[in-house]
């Protein structure tokens, strides 16, 4: 795979980390443990860590489920911290997003018992918890980018 090297990303200062992840739910679980244990996350509050794990889980699992589906695939996660923001860049070579753009992430309709939603929460959570959320399809690759506020 030839994802842009982290050195290509336009960050002048701060610390960074790169993770290579195979496209399976178990590999995502292992990668999240590695990410959360990495020194780049050590300054975060418990709450910010929980939010970061949640957003990264949603982004990565969406790729496993929807971009690669039953295909094997590779995911690259680049993290970069500058000041109060953790920048996250996720690359994959799977299917593009529907209609080539970010899913709307609508609130789910909370109906009665049998009509309760069992899915469709992923993009709502990502939109709600991130800043600077961007999706680009370039050279048959998906690039999802967002920032997390890690202040407090």
């Amino acid at each position: 795979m030839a994802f842009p090297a982290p050195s290509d990303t336009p960050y002048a200062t701060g610390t960074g980390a790169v993770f290579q992840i195979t496209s399976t739910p178990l590999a995502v679980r292992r990668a999240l443990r590695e990410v959360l244990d990495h020194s780049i996350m050590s300054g975060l509050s418990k709450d910010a860590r929980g939010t970061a794990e949640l957003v990264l889980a949603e982004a990565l699992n969406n790729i496993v489920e929807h971009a690669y589906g039953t295909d094997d695939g590779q995911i690259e996660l680049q993290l970069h911290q500058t000041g109060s923001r953790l920048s996250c860049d996720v690359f994959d070579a799977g299917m593009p997003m529907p209609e080539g753009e970010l899913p709307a992430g609508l609130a789910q309709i909370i109906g009665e018992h049998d009509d309760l939603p069992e899915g469709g929460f992923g993009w709502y959570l990502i939109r709600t918890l991130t800043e600077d959320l961007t999706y680009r399809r370039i050279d048959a690759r998906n690039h999802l980018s967002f920032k997390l506020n890690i202040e407090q």
Partner: protein
Amino acid sequence: MDLATETQDDLLIVRAMEDRIDAAGAIQFKEQMRSICQNPQSRVMLDLSRVAFLDSSGLGAVVAVMKLLGPGRRLELAALTPTVAKVFRLTRMDTVFTIHDSVPNGFPSAV
């Protein structure tokens, strides 16, 4: 997915013993809950005190368990850790479940 159960009269308490209910474990969790819920108790309470992390797949599995209990029985939740509580709050699913701060006396403490 390790699940421990205890009954108190009409109440079935199920404690998730793993620290996460995520995309990799959601289906297994749901299937094990399905067989546990064959028990006849009318109230089922899921003790989440040991679950530090739950993603949207885990949330979906909890909702699915609620549904497979059928209309006469409801799934109650207890002892949500902060990140898990946040997922329920952000998605507004905290309005769907009865959520208890802790499980009733009798169940051995999680910590």
